[in-house]
């Protein structure tokens, strides 16, 4: 309803009456469309996010796990692996926003070469053909989703050179989870600086 003078209001009302012969009982819902086509911005560069960097996953199915960063994918997501044998995290895409990047890095020269060939298409979900539910239930041989062979091969191909070079302490580290305990203040904890080199080999594992 306009806030103009009564003449203007009258004018508007006349227009409205002319346009519509009937009014719907409820307001129609319009689908939301962006008026301005917002372009996807490129992902901001993260400090310390280098191939081989150990990251802590902050959210999602694998939260708390320590994971090795392989490369950035064109979609803006980070390609990441556990390695699978060490901590159960497979080759996966992760949002960089949910990765806490630490300064610890692992040498992944061979793995990086392998990883270079991977793309978003590899990780994208395969589109299911629409079937009625009953058909799905009674379909022969329907036993649930199986991991395709190419993914298994890719996992071993990338993980093998990484795991071979891992020292025992590093394996323990990657296998462990990040947790906050009493007295730990996350705002005071440092993740990006290395003040001194505690040589992992000097931390002799007493019990093998």
């Amino acid at each position: 309803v306009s806030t103009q003078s009564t003449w203007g209001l009258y004018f508007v009302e006349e227009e409205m009456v002319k346009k519509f012969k009937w009014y719907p009982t409820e307001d129609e819902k319009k689908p939301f469309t962006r008026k301005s086509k917002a372009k996807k911005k490129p992902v901001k560069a993260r400090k310390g996010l280098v191939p081989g960097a150990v990251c802590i996953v902050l959210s999602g199915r694998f939260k708390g796990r320590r994971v090795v960063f392989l490369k950035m994918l064109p979609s803006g997501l980070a390609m990441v692996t556990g390695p699978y044998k060490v901590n159960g995290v497979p080759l996966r895409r992760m949002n960089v926003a949910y990765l806490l990047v630490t300064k610890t890095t692992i040498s992944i020269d061979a793995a990086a070469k392998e990883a270079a060939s991977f793309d978003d298409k590899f990780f994208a979900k395969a589109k299911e053909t629409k079937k009625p539910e009953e058909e799905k239930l009674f379909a022969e041989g329907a036993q649930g989703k199986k991991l395709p062979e190419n993914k298994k091969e890719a996992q071993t191909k990338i993980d093998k050179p990484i795991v071979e070079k891992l020292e025992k302490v590093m394996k323990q580290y990657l296998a462990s989870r990040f947790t906050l305990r009493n007295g730990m203040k996350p705002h005071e904890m440092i993740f990006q600086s290395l003040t001194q080199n505690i040589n992992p080999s000097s931390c002799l594992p007493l019990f093998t």
Partner: protein
Amino acid sequence: MCIRDRVSTQSTWDINFSKEQMGFKRFVEAGRVAYINFGEDHGKICVIADVINNNRVLVDGPTLGVSRQVISLRRIALTDFVVKVPKGAKTRTIQNAISEFGLIKKWGETKWGNKVATHAKRSKLNDFERFQVMVLKRQKSYLVNKEVAQASGKKVHKKKTVKKESKQLKPNAINSLTHTHTYYPVSYTHL
């Protein structure tokens, strides 16, 4: 300044009363080395150059990272060390006295000094380094508890994770725990 530094059990009016007879052992005096508890320079040690009044003190720490300043006694803790320095000494005098005394080295050898250094190190650790410290702590505590149990004649609990318990621990392994890192100025040989 803790309460121990203030309470005296001896009467100060006795004729033969001497400094040694007082309950106090650490005095606020020119040359006394003090540890700064609070403020910008917290965690550092300094030398008391002069006493202003009951509450304030002039302090200086030339090679210790403390500028010459007036500081409240409430922000200070007295240490055992006294550097030979006249009252109101200038920065250069104090600097020479500190180096002659070997203060930095002596401070590093004390338990207190060690603790301060350890805390400083620990606050700057990386995530991986924190993990390594945790593992070392775990290993050390296992050894310590084992020794204690053996000394007291109790049965040693068999840890599930330890597969080869019958193996003798090599002396090198224990040494690396005690001497490589200054986190643990520990010798459990006294057990």
